[in-house]
Structure formats: C-alpha cells, structure tokens
C-alpha cells in the first residue's frame, strides 16, 4: 500500500524568508507526485506535479519541488514567501499501472507567513 507523510503539520515563517515543506512517500511501484494548495475557505488547486523527466519541477506562484527517488521524497520549496502564500499544502501520490488510480493525500502542512 502507498502512503504519504507530511512531517510538519504547521510551518511558521516570516515574509520574504525561504521555506521547505517536506513530503515523503512509500510505494513499491512507480508513482506520480503532486502538490496541491488550499487557500482559506477555498477548494484545492494544483500547484505542481512530477510525472517523469527532470526531477526538479516548477509550479505556480514561484514554488518548486524536487523528486528524490532514493529518499522517496518530494519536498516543496520557495525561495521567498509572501503573506498571500498562507494556506494549507497537501502532498499527494498516485500509483500508476494498477487497476485504479486514486490519489492518496498527506495530512497537510499549514504554511503561516508572518509579516
């Protein structure tokens, strides 16, 4: 079975500081990896995804993530955060090649940007 672990439930950071949100996954088969963002009182929005190719993936709003197969990680980074980045961030894993392709989510990390 596959699972997704987001070790940090909340990450406080000052505006213009860099941030890294951690995500580790476990799966015995090949996977696609995603990061979604949920702004307060809104639905989920796709931030970026890794399907294949370059392990460094760039997404919207200046975010990027690096796929590390040996460490089974897909950490999300931004070099300089803004107040508007305050939101819940979810890492998700999709196993491909199987009978179903359901997306499994981590428990989320609340990014709280302070002035």
């Amino acid at each position: 079975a596959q699972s997704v672990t987001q070790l940090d439930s909340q990450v406080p950071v000052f505006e213009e500081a860099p941030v890294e949100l951690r995500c580790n996954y476990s799966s015995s088969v090949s996977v696609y990896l995603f990061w979604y963002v949920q702004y307060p009182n809104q639905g989920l929005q796709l931030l970026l995804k890794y399907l294949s190719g370059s392990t460094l993936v760039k997404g919207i709003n200046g975010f990027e993530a690096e796929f590390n197969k040996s460490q089974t990680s897909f950490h999300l980074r931004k070099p300089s955060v803004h107040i508007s980045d305050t939101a819940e961030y979810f890492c998700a894993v999709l196993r491909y090649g199987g009978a179903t392709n359901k997306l499994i989510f981590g428990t989320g990390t609340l990014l709280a940007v302070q002035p």
Partner: protein
Amino acid sequence: GAGVSQSPSNKVTEKGKDVELRCDPISGHTALYWYRQRLGQGLEFLIYFQGNSAPDKSGLPSDRFSAERTGESVSTLTIQRTQQEDSAVYLCASSRNSERGYGYTFGSGTRLTVV
C-alpha cells in the same frame, strides 16, 4: 462547465436524517472521486468511478455511505442516518482517464454540518 460543480455548498442537517450531495464533473472527464476532509485534517479517499467499470468503494467508512454515477455524468453521494462524526467538507474531483498522471480538478466542496 468550466470546472467541477458541487451542490449544495453548505448543508446543515439533524442527526439521523439522510443527505444527498451532488457533483457535476468537467465534461469529458471519465474519472470521478469523492473525498472527505474533516476539520484540520487531510483528505480521506471515499470512492472512485472510472467510466463504466465497477467503482472502487474501498474508502467508504460505513454502509451508511453510498454513491452513484451514471456513465460519465453527475454523481451523488448519499449519507443515511447522519451522525455528528459525518460533519466534514465533502470534495469531488474529476480527471480524464487517458491522462491519469495529469492531476485532478477539485470542486469547492459541500460543507456538511450534522447537529
């Protein structure tokens, strides 16, 4: 339509009553998913529909929960004899099966409150 539409956006119901939640997926999306998000928690997979295949119901928490979808159209999630622990945001997402690695589009959810 342009996005995934869910109705109602908010629902308050008395304990023991049945509720029906609706999801209109993006036209042409053969895959449809229901997730539950309890307050302060991650997304919990409930059920997955893919075209005319048998749905993956492995995430339904009890036999009080059921979902229907006819073809590639609207889906309804029904909760019978609601309990207070059913209070959550119920999210629907759709995806094109031929692009199973391309992420899902989420609706804004139905916030269910059982009093």
